[in-house]
């Protein structure tokens, strides 16, 4: 009944071939991304690059390496907000932090950090709670340009108003303006916020565990994956978490469909914060 009726459409064939080309030539694997979103982004890319077909885009991609970063920008860059969903950060602050305080040193992984909004939110929260000095933050993404933007920490000033409001609602104990300097319509976040941050290329599709984490925050990244890829990522998080470590995902995401869901217990259910069960040490 639900066999995909449209698989024979030329555009769909072209998209599959394009993703295959991207993988074979550059080892970026989008073949298990959620197709409806990727199709939308690819259509946008094709249109703005002035190309008539995805086959033409594939041709350019294979023969012109400059095309890669341009296409990756369309496929991966995600504009977010600092303290997006303030109640999530409030729950981290009020319910997760008291547990984290009991550890002498902490590792936090922001997986799929894109341009850094979630990273800075957590660093600021940890500073406010007095945990920053004992924490190493790992900020990873597959897109090098996004990582550079995250490392620069510069955002348009008009977005900072929203960030400020979110920060206040999240229970922020300081003023967000303590952490940036405004000039020429931009807010440049303080370099001291990055002193414990390691920025790194890492793919949830193909890379492995790189450390034992106390907290992993990966919000609204896995919505772009299909179920099999979500499952891989969640498995990777399970392996990467210390026993009793915490995992936070986006408010509309779920572990329900994952084969790894049994390894996690609800910690703050309505905020999608989970805790790795202590049994089954991995």
């Amino acid at each position, binding site marked *: 009944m639900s066999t995909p009726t*449209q698989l024979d459409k030329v555009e769909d064939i072209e998209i599959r071939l394009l993703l295959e080309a991207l993988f074979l030539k550059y080892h970026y694997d989008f073949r298990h991304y959620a197709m*409806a*979103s990727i199709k*939308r982004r690819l259509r946008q890319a094709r249109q703005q690059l002035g190309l008539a077909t995805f086959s033409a885009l594939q041709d350019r991609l294979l023969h012109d390496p400059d095309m890669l970063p341009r296409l990756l920008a369309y496929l991966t860059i*995600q504009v977010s907000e600092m303290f997006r969903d303030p109640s999530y950060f409030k729950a981290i602050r009020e319910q997760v932090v008291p547990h984290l305080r009991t550890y002498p040193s902490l590792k936090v992984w922001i997986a799929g950090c894109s341009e850094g909004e979630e990273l800075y939110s957590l660093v600021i929260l940890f500073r406010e709670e007095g945990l920053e000095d004992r924490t190493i933050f790992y900020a990873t993404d597959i897109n090098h340009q996004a990582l550079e933007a995250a490392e620069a920490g510069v955002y348009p000033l008009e977005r900072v108003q929203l960030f400020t409001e979110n920060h206040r609602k999240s229970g922020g104990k300081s003023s967000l303006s303590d952490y940036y300097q405004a000039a020429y319509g931009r807010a440049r976040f303080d370099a001291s916020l990055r002193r414990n941050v390691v920025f790194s290329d890492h793919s949830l599709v193909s890379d492995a565990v790189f450390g034992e984490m106390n907290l992993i925050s990966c919000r*609204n990244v896995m*919505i772009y994956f299909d179920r099999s890829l979500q499952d891989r990522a969640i498995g990777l998080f399970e392996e990467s978490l210390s026993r009793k470590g915490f995992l936070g995902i986006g408010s509309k995401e779920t572990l329900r469909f994952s084969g790894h869901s049994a390894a996690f217990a609800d910690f703050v259910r309505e905020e999608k914060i989970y805790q790795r069960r202590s049994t089954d040490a991995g």
Partner: protein
Amino acid sequence: MPAEREAIVIGASAGAVEALTSLLPALRPGFRLPIIVVVHLPADRRSAMAELFRAKCALEVREAEDKDPVAAGTIYFAPPDYHLLVEADRTFSLSCDAPVLFSRPSIDVLFESAADAYGPKLVGIVLTGANADGARGLRAIIGEGGAGIVQAPSSAFASAMPEAALQMSPTARPMTLQAIAAYLEEI
């Protein structure tokens, strides 16, 4: 030509609650198609449409979740501040991509993805609204052979959205809410 229908998508903006109230509660238990709805809400009013309509409707009403299979006889609302898309395998995907025409969720995003997924088996309905969202999406649905219905602009609380849809898709059928309700009953 009309293929057997498999799903209905609805987009509504200003005046949405009233318009949907004259359509959704009228659907009887046993209605077999999924109905997927995008409503624009002001960002500060993150109230769940699903909760509002759950009390009024005989059918099951839910907020769509990422990777949820699209179930028959269920009314789904897009969650606030996410785009809602339908995949070819009849599951939902959410996205945080930039707003389209200042809207997230966007009617166009839902409609275009559903047009890809369901082809001629889809019905698209554009209701009242004060912007132009849904017009491109409805054109995509009709382009794939699906049915396009638009609330008659003169009968809509806000006529801009139905007008924009009709302008882009002259073959879409303008209907009053009563006529749309009757159409859904017959489907």
